[in-house]
């Protein structure tokens, strides 16, 4: 029996090594490797930067059995280079039977529900290119680490390794949304203070 291949597509501008998307995707891929899948990782932003990079990436897509796209929510959807890549995949017109597709998405707000529109777009993409949609692991800003996250990824890997949909596994939130907003606002001010811009955080450079 041929070894199944999983391809991780990291859709964060910060790359595979330095992004939450790369870390979370890597966690899933490691768990898939332990279950016997052969794995490969690609950075989408890098791939769409050159025709050679794009060709290499499309080749990898053409041979994988399971595609996992891991990215941050950007303006209610995917970062632009990811959409560009998906447009290339759709245009390449290589519809392959039995290709499976799953998504890992995390947003900068505490409510993971804000990922839902982007998840629906991923599902629609899968439908348009003829891939089998296996679901998403959706995380809020406070849910990217910890035991319940590890559990969710283990359970997802177990299902995906068998070609089954990602199961729903509740992930524990570490603080209430109001506290996140309060702490986040303080964090922006503190970072700006270090940059010497705290007094200009509400600047309106484009006001008439």
């Amino acid at each position, binding site marked *: 029996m041929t070894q199944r291949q999983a391809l991780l597509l990291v859709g964060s*501008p910060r790359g595979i090594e330095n992004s939450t998307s790369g870390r979370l995707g890597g966690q899933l891929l490691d768990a898939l490797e332990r279950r016997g899948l052969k794995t490969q990782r690609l950075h989408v932003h890098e791939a769409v930067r050159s025709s050679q990079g794009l060709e290499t990436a499309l080749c990898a897509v053409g041979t994988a059995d399971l595609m996992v796209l891991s990215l941050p929510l950007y303006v*209610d959807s995917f970062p*632009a280079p990811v959409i560009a890549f998906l447009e290339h995949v759709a245009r390449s017109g290589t519809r392959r039977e039995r290709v499976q597709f799953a998504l890992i998405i995390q947003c900068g707000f505490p409510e993971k529900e804000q990922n839902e529109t982007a998840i629906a777009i991923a599902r*629609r993409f899968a439908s348009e290119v003829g891939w089998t949609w296996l679901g998403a692991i959706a995380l809020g800003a406070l849910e990217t680490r910890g035991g319940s996250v590890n559990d969710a990824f283990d359970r997802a890997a177990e299902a995906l390794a068998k070609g089954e949909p990602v199961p729903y596994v509740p992930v524990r939130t570490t603080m209430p949304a*109001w506290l996140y907003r309060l702490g986040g606002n303080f964090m*922006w001010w503190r970072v700006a203070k270090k940059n010497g811009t705290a007094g200009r955080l*509400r600047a309106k450079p484009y*006001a008439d």
Partner: protein
Amino acid sequence: MNAVVLDGFLDETGQDALAALRDALGSARFEVEVIALRTKTIAPCVGCFGCWVKTPGECVIDDEGRDVARSLARADVIVHFTPVTFGGVSSELKKALDRIIPNISPFFAKVQGETHHQKRYAQPPSLIGLGVLPTPDREAEALFKTLVEDNATNLRSPRTAVAVVALDRPDTFKEILHGLVEAVTR
């Protein structure tokens, strides 16, 4: 009043719909600026948050993305004009949308029960979403409408109107587009 249309088409496919949109905006006495994003050099957002904490209100990348953000900050109405792509927007439109986050504040607020960002400018623009499909497709239309409404919440737009037109039904353009413009001006 002025309207800025972000044209997210890679080619001339949507020009008939764009002409009808110009006509509808003109009839409502808008000054119209159409930005054909395919002709603009706009690098992808690098996710550094520099536009919030290093150069507040302006992206750290010095390219035409800044010009787009400036136009949008001064607009009364903005239009996301795009081929509906997997139910969402095209990569051409998205490359601009990813670069307009300097126009909102980094500070969080509770909006409609969810966490979003505060306004940077006192009067954010109203938002029209105009999607184009080759033929009617209810699922894609519904998804596109949800996405535009989500965008409006994040942009803190006071009024929102969304429609999807089908290229095989050019006879419907006029009525739909006049309805859209009326919805954000009434």
